[in-house]
């Protein structure tokens, strides 16, 4: 009986167990497999982090303070044990602590100061005073195989440190770097949250692909999509960017390798340059807690409006920004850490916009034994922002004032569309309308991003080290527009009482980028020769999976797509794996002449199973002439002089499967429709960029003046053009390796230390970059457009710059009548002839002042607002009276304006509270107070904001139906979106 019961019980258990697994666990695992895998990785990665932190080795500790020639503590100085990758950095007061062995030699290095090497011996305190500014002795992170002395580099490399960033209370990487990279131009496409930017360093090297650099955080490649995703909410031309949420709170150092010669070892996709972000892993010493708070007022700029007072009154308000960041930094000789959390909220200068950001993160470093160091970092960021319709949208109601569309045909109860004629009552109507629309608009973009990196550095021998790294960047974005009937009625888009026109447009994008790397560095020397060999491999995979759901007849007030009459689904995927190995040999002679040879061999799955192999070579030479004995006579005036020349190749891959002949298969009225699609190009390969650069880095008058000069020329061979076929063949345009694009230019960057020492300091930086861009060959194809409008758009044509503006150029006779129209005329190019940045640092005792700005000259853009005003009879006086009845197609050229500008981006005044004062308080170790004005002054030649581009990049390949992303954009269509607002921000920082 008992046995029988037991077997029944077992059977019962078994049945339930099986049922449980079959119906609950298995489906659960299947459904959540991907999420589970991700969670697993997060979990394991965290375990690794904590394991590493707990492993501690007891060694002898050396500590000390690093000061400058004035006795002020220098924060952020690198302290490294020679021959190892073990190191730390100094804290805010210049203090450090590091675990050493008796025979160790410490290397102290800091930007702009001469590095020093000190043998530890039996000392437990090593204090250092640093001086002798020389850029050539700076150590630069190049990402592969460890740090490199700048003197050895045959290419020009830009570096920005945490100190440079401290004065800029901005949380977006591209805006943060605006005006700070001397040879790179960063243009903000919109002042609304989350918008894209245009980043250009050495011209426009592709007529297909976006120009933003690839970005690595601690060796992990992160999502850098800076155009609209394949599937997105249309908000009227404004696009959103993944650069909006790259974590910036723990940056220690940013290195920018400009495309071409400097990025060869990064292989495919590195043609636009590589931005390397290194995070702060903490400093040895007692735990230091920091708190930073920012409070600010945000005012929309009315500089570019035609009716600034009306728009200001009707739409703008004073926005409020508040931010709080808490950090803890510390460690001992073996383990250091740096954790932070930040909350930031910006309710914007216009009702309906706004951004809230939550971020936490940390960096940590552990010496696992005397030869093995682990470095890790992670960050989690959640960014939520809301948008309004703008630019090229019928639902925009703010820029519509300038464009003369409000009140047209008596809409919204207005008597006229000419805002200058509106009565006070009508202005009230407009104000109420804008407020109502803002209240009813529900366009939100929510992103969660988790970025994580791990690196083990093993010193096998004094001169042989191995680095192994792994990490990932996971980013999820939901971009959604909920349009209610109430909203559409308020927009006068549907008749009052309509209940069937509500909709949701929901776009989810999942991005997972995984990076693994291995590099080996070997140093050797024979007599006067030194040999540095770096070899390694790198693998990265990006998975970008998107889906879009659009509903119709969405029930009012509901926010789930289920409550609608119909749901339409679209997906988009762009996944690719890239891996390769590289080898670089740097041969030094007498520590003055360095010959640099290397290559990368890359493989990529952009063409599916047909994995192709690409070989990218490089060679360079740098010669520090100022170290030669014969230079001593010159050194009073020219104290450092390095000449360099470099050649290198890099690549740019088309989107995956662009090579394949495909059918367009679309749903059409409930059926499946087959149509011929992309015809395919079986020989399609990557673009290949060959760059030759030469120049010199010079220091004058004890490095009070530093000048960097680079002359460069870059040719993109096999440039991919999506040029049309003869229309009568019915063949869709297909990306083909048809063209050749040439960019060349001169980069000049200078720094001046006008006052050094004493109570006063004064220094300035200025740069100028002269560029020329030309499509050298179109491969026999006709020109094709890459955006814009039919009547006026950016085109690609042999003999002209990429994206030159094509449209009709009118000529008027004396009476003002149209006398001639040159069709398809070259109306100028949006790429400037010269751009650069300017900055000034001044200090007096504990006060410091920072002013930075940038400029461009020689570019043109389209005043699209004026085109719209022309339609509506509100044109300005650029068109003679006698020609006001002409078609805007014939008049296109009149709306092309020079877009020269000088914009002051940042003025920051900081006061570092004296130690004497703080010592009275007791528990506060350091404090500072800053006041910042962002975007305070704009000087410009055009009637519109020359920086904005409402048109954004295309969502499809030119001339095709193929949905894509990361397309080239040259900007140039300025209209209907917000300019970067003026912000007045106070910052308080405390260290406890």
């Amino acid at each position, binding site marked *: 009986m008992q046995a029988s019961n037991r077997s029944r019980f077992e059977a019962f258990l078994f049945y339930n167990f099986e049922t449980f697994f079959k119906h609950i666990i298995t489906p659960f695992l299947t459904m959540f497999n991907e999420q589970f895998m991700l969670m697993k990785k997060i979990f394991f990665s965290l375990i690794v982090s904590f394991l590493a932190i707990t492993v501690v080795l007891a060694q002898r500790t050396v500590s000390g303070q690093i000061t400058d020639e004035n006795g002020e503590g220098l924060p952020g100085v690198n302290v490294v044990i020679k021959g190892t990758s073990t190191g730390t950095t100094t804290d805010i007061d210049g203090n450090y602590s590091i675990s050493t062995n008796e025979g160790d030699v410490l290397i102290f290095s800091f930007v702009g100061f001469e590095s020093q090497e000190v043998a530890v011996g039996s000392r437990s305190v090593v204090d250092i005073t640093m001086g002798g500014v020389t850029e050539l002795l700076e150590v630069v992170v190049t990402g592969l195989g460890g740090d490199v002395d700048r003197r050895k580099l045959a290419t020009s490399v830009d570096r920005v440190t945490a100190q440079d960033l401290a004065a800029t209370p901005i949380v977006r990487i591209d805006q943060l770097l605006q005006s700070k990279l001397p040879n790179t131009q960063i243009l903000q496409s919109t002042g609304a949250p989350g918008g894209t930017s245009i980043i250009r360093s050495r011209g426009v090297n592709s007529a297909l692909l976006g120009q933003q650099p690839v970005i690595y955080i601690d060796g992990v490649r992160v999502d850098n999509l800076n155009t609209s995703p394949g599937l997105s909410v249309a908000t009227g031309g404004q696009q959103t960017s993944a650069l909006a949420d790259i974590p910036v709170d723990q940056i220690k150092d940013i290195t920018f390798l400009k495309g071409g010669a400097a990025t060869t070892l990064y292989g495919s996709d590195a043609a636009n340059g590589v931005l390397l972000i290194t995070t702060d892993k903490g400093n040895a010493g007692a735990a230091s807690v920091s708190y930073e708070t920012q409070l600010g007022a945000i005012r929309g700029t009315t500089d570019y409006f035609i009716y600034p007072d009306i728009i200001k009154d009707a739409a703008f308000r004073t926005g409020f920004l508040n931010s709080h960041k808490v950090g803890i930094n510390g460690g001992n000789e073996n383990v250091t850490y740096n954790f932070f959390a930040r909350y930031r909220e910006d309710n914007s200068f216009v009702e309906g916009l706004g951004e809230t950001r939550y971020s936490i993160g940390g960096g940590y470093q552990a010496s696992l034994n005397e030869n093995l160091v682990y470095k890790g970092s992670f960050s989690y960021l959640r960014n939520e922002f809301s948008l309004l319709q703008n630019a090229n949208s019928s639902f925009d109601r703010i820029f519509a004032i300038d464009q003369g569309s409000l009140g*047209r045909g008596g809409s919204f109860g207005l008597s006229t569309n000419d805002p200058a004629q509106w009565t006070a009552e009508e202005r009230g109507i407009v104000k109420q309308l804008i407020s109502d629309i803002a209240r009813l608009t529900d366009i939100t973009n929510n992103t969660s991003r988790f970025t994580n990196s791990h690196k083990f550095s093993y010193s096998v021998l004094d001169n042989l080290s191995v680095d192994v790294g792994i990490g990932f960047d996971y980013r999820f974005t939901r971009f959604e527009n909920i349009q209610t009937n109430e909203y559409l009625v308020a927009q006068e888009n549907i008749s009052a009482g309509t209940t069937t026109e509500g909709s949701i447009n929901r776009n989810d994008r999942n991005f997972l980028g*995984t990076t693994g790397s291995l590099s080996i560095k070997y140093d050797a020397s024979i007599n006067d020769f030194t040999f540095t060999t770096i070899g390694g491999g790198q693998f990265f995979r990006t998975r970008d999976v998107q889906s879009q759901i659009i509903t119709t007849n969405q029930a009012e007030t509901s926010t789930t797509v289920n409550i609608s009459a119909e749901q339409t689904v679209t997906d988009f995927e762009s996944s690719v794996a890239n891996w390769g190995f590289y080898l670089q040999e740097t041969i030094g002679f007498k520590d003055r002449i360095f010959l640099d040879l290397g290559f990368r061999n890359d493989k990529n*799955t952009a063409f599916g199973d047909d994995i192709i192999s690409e070989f990218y070579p490089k060679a360079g030479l740098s010669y520090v002439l100022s170290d030669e004995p014969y230079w001593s006579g010159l050194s009073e005036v020219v104290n450092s002089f390095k000449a360099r020349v470099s050649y290198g190749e890099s690549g740019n891959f088309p989107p995956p499967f662009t090579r394949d002949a495909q059918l367009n298969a679309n749903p059409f009225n409930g059926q499946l429709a*087959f149509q011929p*699609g992309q015809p395919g190009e079986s020989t399609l390969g990557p673009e290949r960029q060959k760059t030759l650069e030469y120049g010199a880095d010079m220091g004058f008058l004890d490095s009070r003046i530093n000048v960097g000069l680079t002359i460069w020329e870059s040719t993109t061979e096999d440039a991919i053009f999506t040029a049309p076929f003869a229309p009568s063949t019915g063949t869709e345009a297909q990306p083909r390796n048809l063209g050749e694009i040439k960019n060349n230019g001169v980069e000049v960057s200078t720094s001046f230390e006008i006052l050094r020492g004493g109570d006063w300091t004064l220094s300035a930086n200025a740069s100028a970059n002269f560029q020329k861009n030309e499509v050298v060959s179109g491969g026999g194809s006709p020109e094709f457009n890459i955006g814009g409008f039919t009547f006026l758009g950016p085109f690609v044509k042999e003999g002209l710059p990429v994206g030159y503006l094509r449209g009709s150029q009118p000529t008027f006779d004396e009476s003002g009548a149209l006398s001639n129209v040159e*069709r398809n005329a070259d109306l100028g190019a949006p790429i400037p002839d010269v751009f650069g940045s300017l900055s000034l640092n001044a200090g007096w005792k504990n006060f410091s002042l920072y002013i930075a700005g940038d400029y461009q000259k020689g570019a043109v853009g389209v005043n699209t607002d004026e085109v719209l005003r022309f339609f509506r009879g509100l044109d300005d006086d650029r068109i003679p009276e006698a020609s006001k009845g002409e078609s805007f197609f014939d008049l296109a050229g009149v709306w092309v304006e020079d877009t020269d500008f000088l914009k002051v981006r940042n003025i920051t005044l900081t006061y570092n509270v004296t130690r004497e004062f703080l010592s009275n308080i007791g528990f506060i170790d350091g404090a500072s107070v800053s006041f910042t004005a962002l975007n305070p002054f704009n000087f410009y030649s055009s009637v519109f904001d020359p920086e904005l581009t409402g048109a954004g990049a295309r969502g499809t390949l030119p001339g095709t139906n193929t949905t894509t992303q990361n397309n080239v954009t040259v900007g140039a269509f300025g209209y209907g979106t917000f300019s970067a607002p003026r912000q007045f921000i106070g910052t308080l920082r405390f260290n406890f």
Partner: protein
Amino acid sequence: MKLYIKSILVCAAVVFISACDEFDPKKGIENPNLLLENVIGSPGSTASWIVGQEREMAIVYNRLLELTEIGSDNYENVQTFFNQQFDALNITFQDQNVDNLAFRIADLRTSGNIGLQQVQPADPDGTDAQRAELFFYVGWAKMLAGELFVALPDTELPDSEPATPKTPTENLNAALADFQAAEALDGTHAGYKLALARTYYNLGDQANAVLKANEAIAADPNYTRTVEFDGTNGPDSDFADALFDRGNFDDLQPLPRLDFLDPKYFVEGDTESPVYIQKAEEAHLILAEAELANNDVPAARTHLTNLLSLVNTRAMNTFSDAVEGRDGSRPATAVVMVAASASDPLRAGLVIDRQLGDVTVARISGTSIVQTDIDALTDQLVALEMLYLMRQEIFIAEGRRFVDLGIKMPISENESLLNPAVTSTHILSSVPSFVPTDMDAFTFDTSTNEVVILHNMNAILVANRTDAAVVPFF
């Protein structure tokens, strides 16, 4: 020391094991899209191919209607990014819209040929009726090429070299062959007969046009064929947007004498009005015009009476058009009287007030002509002018007026650059000398509520009826 070694091993193992599947290069690199070779030979492939042709027609008509309606007296492009040159008949070979329309027509033709040559023969479910439909679409593409362009090549398949441009007559004759092939496969289909009648009409072949028009009416006296749009998945109807769903950028305004027919298309939810590209009315119009060419006005009256009877049975749409924006320079109330020209009488009832509740607009065909107007016809040329007014009204927003006015687009710049057979005459548009560029101009006296249109284009057509470009039977 052991602790550290263990820790390192654990760390390394955990990290790399957890991520190792990520480093398999072959993982996840399949093209998720569809290739032609996957489709050929699969059951049901022809059905999907024909749906593809229907979808292509939606794209063709989006391009075609924009250009041809703006390029006629039917609509004026008031303030939109739609083509501006066509309004002033400034039609150049550099116009991207011309290039794009030529491409879409070619796409319709070449994909139809793929269907005929590769997809339908290999489809185990393929039928003669499907084959007939594919012939119809290929023929339709050639017919549009003949009607709309001074010349166009008819390259057969997408990846082949461009062919020699064909004259309108050659393209229309090529279209006849395809329509005949369709008719041979499906002899009862009114649409194929009507397509033949239209093509013969364009060629001026009165006898065959009359024959096929009569056969078409016999096959289906109420026949219609539409181009549908898909408001959910696209393509949307661009023209419906321009006429009904007006925003900041879309605004086409009708000639005041056609105001009562506007907007022919409207949008409700994801339902968008179709475009009627074939309807039995056309057969009656051909028959009536043939009789007028024979100077048999009574016989023409009979056909026009039959036509009016059919038009009066056609469905109407009733909807709110209150969002319509007629700015102050255009008539917007029912009291307005409209004269077709300064020498024509003022007529009432042509303008609707859209702010007084729902409007009722003809869905398929509408006309301002009533039976008494037809009964009163005795003069051949007066009748012909009325017939062309009825053609204009019945075919409004269907892309036909441009052809009736005898205007033809040139071969585009891209074709001329890539096709060595294109000559300098091919890149010039053809606009009859009697067609003025300000066709849609009018004066509106708001004090008297009187609109006078500058040119009565129907009268001008009749006056120039012997010109080879217009009125084919004369």
